[in-house]
């Protein structure tokens, strides 16, 4: 009974933490991104959440940590702590399929599935999230946030963001 209750509590805590969205890309939750690593229930009933930073300087991380604490508070878990774990280092490979689909629908081309150096520096084939054309070109390696590059579609002529491999 107790184990069941604990599992239920833990699931509720996970769901609350997992509902938090990226402040820059509000269609993605921290679970979609793979930023949410672990939710543990401590003996005193308080919750500890482990998140992993995406890019070293990503300014969204502190907002995400704060939002998770607030979401847990709303779900009835007071005094939750959010811990940042560096190892293993986050990679775009952890982004869920669901997350990639949501990104595309939002107008951002999702990262290529392999974050190897070959994927980072090989010939990049990025599909236009607007019209689906593969006829695209890189405009700038660095885009509106540290995780994105700026691309342009040669078919529909629309510029778009590409979530870089990392």
């Amino acid at each position, binding site marked *: 009974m107790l184990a069941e209750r604990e599992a239920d509590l833990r699931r509720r805590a996970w769901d609350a933490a997992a509902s938090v969205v990226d402040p820059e890309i509000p269609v993605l939750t921290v679970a979609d991104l793979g930023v949410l690593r672990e939710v543990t229930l401590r003996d005193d009933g308080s919750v500890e959440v482990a998140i992993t930073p995406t890019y*070293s*300087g990503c300014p969204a991380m502190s907002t995400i940590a704060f939002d998770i604490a607030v979401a847990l508070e709303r779900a009835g878990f007071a005094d939750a702590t959010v811990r940042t774990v560096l190892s293993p280092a986050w990679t775009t490979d952890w982004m869920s399929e669901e997350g990639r689909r949501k990104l595309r629908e939002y107008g951002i081309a999702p990262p290529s599935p392999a974050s190897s*150096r070959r994927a980072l520096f090989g010939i990049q084939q990025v599909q236009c999230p607007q019209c689906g054309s593969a006829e695209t070109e890189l405009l*700038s*390696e*660095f885009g*509106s946030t*540290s995780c994105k590059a*700026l691309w342009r579609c040669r078919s529909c002529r629309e510029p778009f963001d590409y979530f870089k491999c990392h």
Partner: protein
Amino acid sequence: MAAPSIQVSETPLVLYTLRRADDALILGHRLSEWCGHAPMLEEDMALANIALDLLGQARELYGYAAKVEGKGNDEDKLAYLRDVRQYRNLLLAEQPNGDFARTIVRQFVYSAFADLYWRAMMASTDETLSAIAAKSEKESAYHLRHCSEWVVRLGDGTAESHRRAQTAIDDLWAFTGEMFSVDDSERGLIDAGIAVDPTSLRARWLKTITEVVSEATLVLPQNDWMQQGGRIGNHSEHLGHLLSELQSMQRTFPGATW
């Protein structure tokens, strides 16, 4: 009342981590000075993005240095409350931006090193440094690619851009040797597998930059004399001016938050 400087107990690991944190902070701060002034919008964003990556690396390294030191310091105190002579960054990082070519060449020679360095540091026996390396390695690879393209464009561009790029290489060359320097305090860490021996990276670094510089129709100086001192706090006049701006808020209003 101005906030006084802190003291740091520089054990070998603390010193080693601080040196890399200072490199990232100071170079990142230099790049941030371009914000709103770059030659074009895309480049303004690129330089600010690279600055942000470096700032992020600095924060993680400072946080770790403070934790290892265990004397109640934190990332903010280490960044804002040390005097110029307590800073341990490479002289290269603090060199003024100059023109766009100089900023690009400075970033290029550093990123070509950082890319190799962080990749090698992923094998560090220190779990935190290895984790920071795994992240920094990918970021540095993007920085290197971006700067390499610019070096080629500037060197193989107009007579004016060529002249400026060549002048930047000639002027900054003497600051590149410090990246490969090792002192006694680092030797022990290298032997323990915590740090990598930077001299083992020099041949590959030279190969990378030689290829790009040649494609850019530029030449590397033959002069081997190298300037050093940043790692032990002997800085050029430029760092003090940089810190007075970087630290002014915390020095004037100690502990200010917003």
